[in-house]
């Protein structure tokens, strides 16, 4: 299905085409001290990450808070300037582009946030919020065209176009997320970064939004990068998964392979911590619970950053950071014990 969709897409050269390629991306934030704000170190929020996202696919980034997943998303969208590395979008290194050159790419990549309420203006009608990008980027030729587009966007996310004149507070969390999605779609993007799109929603509403995201992907051939901490959600929507810890990739593989055979001890621990909504399954499960908290990214452990919490760490793990190796076809793991 994914292949078909990609082939139908305008501009797709081959079905195997990567829409996004990230090469050795680094995003450091300086730690300063003293009167003159001398740089005394770096927080390596993203530390040498490489990944590809195929057209029409959903890549999920998982990891605990502080793993750098949100920073990675912001860097890929050029909302933050990376310290080093390359970001290729549809064959172009977007970090090399000037602001003006980047403008057309800005339209092609959009973002959905966890709680759109914080980005909604309380005194702006939701119709103008959704339609604003059309005005800014001059995508509607006339008022009639503008209204038609906004109504169409409302319908595409399952909202009644009659509601365009209402204000954000009149909507529930799920409806506000739909409004945020409609605005992202206004630009007719190819690529959407969704940062925790359902984590603020109730279970029954969460399922509605996940289904909507899947429908829109089919309908418009969208490529998603979903940042999520809920592995049950990730299993449901992702085609490929990147597991991050303290700014580094621990494991990358197809979602099916990752959930069937997690190899990295961190991935195993993350999965083990997620309770399954079935008491019988839970009683039969052996859980392995990680000790302690994720260390501060300002002062990461030496060697493998995970060794301080790793149940199978040995002395060598403290020495050198393990490289990402292809441990099975298409399945990459950064662990010397695998």
């Amino acid at each position, binding site marked *: 299905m994914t292949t078909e969709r990609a082939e139908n897409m305008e501009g797709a050269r081959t079905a195997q085409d990567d829409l996004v390629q990230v090469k050795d991306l680094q995003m450091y934030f300086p730690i300063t001290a003293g009167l003159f704000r001398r740089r005394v170190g770096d927080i390596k929020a993203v530390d040498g990450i490489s990944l590809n996202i195929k057209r029409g696919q959903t890549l999920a980034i998982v990891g605990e808070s502080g793993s750098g997943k949100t920073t990675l998303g912001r860097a890929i969208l050029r909302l933050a300037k990376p310290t080093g590395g390359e970001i290729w979008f549809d064959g172009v290194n977007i970090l090399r582009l000037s602001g003006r050159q980047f403008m057309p790419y800005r339209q092609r990549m959009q973002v959905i946030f966890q709680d759109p309420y914080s980005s909604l203006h309380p005194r702006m009608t939701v119709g103008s919020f959704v339609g604003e990008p059309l005005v800014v980027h001059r995508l509607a030729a006339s008022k009639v065209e503008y209204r038609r587009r906004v109504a169409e966007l409302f319908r595409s996310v399952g909202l009644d176009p009659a509601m365009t004149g209402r204000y954000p507070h009149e909507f529930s969390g799920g409806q506000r997320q739909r409004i945020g999605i409609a605005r992202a779609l206004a630009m007719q993007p190819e690529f959407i970064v969704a940062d925790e799109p359902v984590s603020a929603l109730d279970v029954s509403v969460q399922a509605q939004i996940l289904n909507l995201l899947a429908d829109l992907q089919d309908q418009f051939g969208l490529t998603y990068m979903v940042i999520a901490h809920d592995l049950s959600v990730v299993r449901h929507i992702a085609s490929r998964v990147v597991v991050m810890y303290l700014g580094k990739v621990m494991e990358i593989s197809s979602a099916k392979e990752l959930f069937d055979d997690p190899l990295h001890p961190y991935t195993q621990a993350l999965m083990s*911590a997620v309770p*399954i909504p*079935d008491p019988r*399954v839970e009683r039969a499960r052996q859980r392995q619970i990680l000790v302690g908290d994720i260390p501060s990214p300002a002062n990461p452990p030496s060697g493998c950053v995970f060794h301080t919490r790793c149940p199978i760490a040995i002395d060598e793990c403290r020495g050198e950071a393990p490289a990402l190796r292809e441990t099975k076809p298409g399945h990459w793991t950064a662990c010397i014990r695998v």
Partner: protein
Amino acid sequence: MAALLEIRNLRTSFFTDEGEAKAVDNVSYDIQEGEFVALVGESGCGKSVSALSVMRLVPFPPGRIIGGEILLNGRDLLKLSEQEMRGVRGNEIGMVFQEPMTSLNPVFTIGHQIVETIRAHKDIDKQAAWRRAVELLELVGIPQPTDRMADYPHQFSGGMRQRVMIAMALSCEPKLVIADEPTTALDVTIQAQVLELLESVAEQLSTAVLLITHNLGVVARYAHRVNVMYAGKIVEQATADEIYHNPRHPYTLGLLQSVPRMDRVEGSRLSTIEGLPPSLLRLPGGCYFHPRCPFIVERCEREEPPAMLVTDDHTAACWQWNEVDIGDSTVVKSK
């Protein structure tokens, strides 16, 4: 045997400019000694207000407990004076809230706050309270407890702060701890640590736990009994196994079917519950769930269903409970 806590026909309302919102509407449930009970439901269903009612901490105005009984070991908490109630809070019922940072005072050390809590409830001197506080921190798995006593809340991580809250809630060895979404703000790895701790400590001290949560995975793992709430009412109550494998209320069934499971991939679509929960100010007539219910019959729009007995130990407030069947979807495909 009488239950530790018996809640009978509890009604708590919020009186707003737009009318009365029945946040807790004729709710009854029991908690036995040492039992782990879950109160599960979505935002705004009244689960937190139900817990605050037990502690008599409903903010007044606009909220008020307007009826019912809350019997703790047979004594009706609603009939106690405020003075007597203060003795119940902490001593007999401990509470753990969602965001520990808002419950801890940022300008006092952790040690000071635990000592104060202990001394507010127990007539012991400072040294003894201090020793007890160190013991409690050790019990909840804080490394180097003696040193950490001198630290301030901001020097603790979210998970550690929640451990401190558990220590404080348990400081007087209450018979019951109410934990309101204690791990919602935490990472899944830390959530597992905190809940395993709560379970094991409660077991050691034979404390009963009332866990308020929206997380069906957490409920499945820890709860013995489950109460499902919707729009201020308990729509189903049973043992955890019954709730998950033989749900008889369409809302419970809908919840279970809409939650994605890590051990399963079933096609690309999740089943959903159509529509939204009703506003407590504009409740539909008859069964509150009827506008979203796939099992609806004519009677549901007119008559409110009482809690019907499915088995001796399982009730569902649904006229059609006999038609509700989870079928084969519970067949487990996990490894």
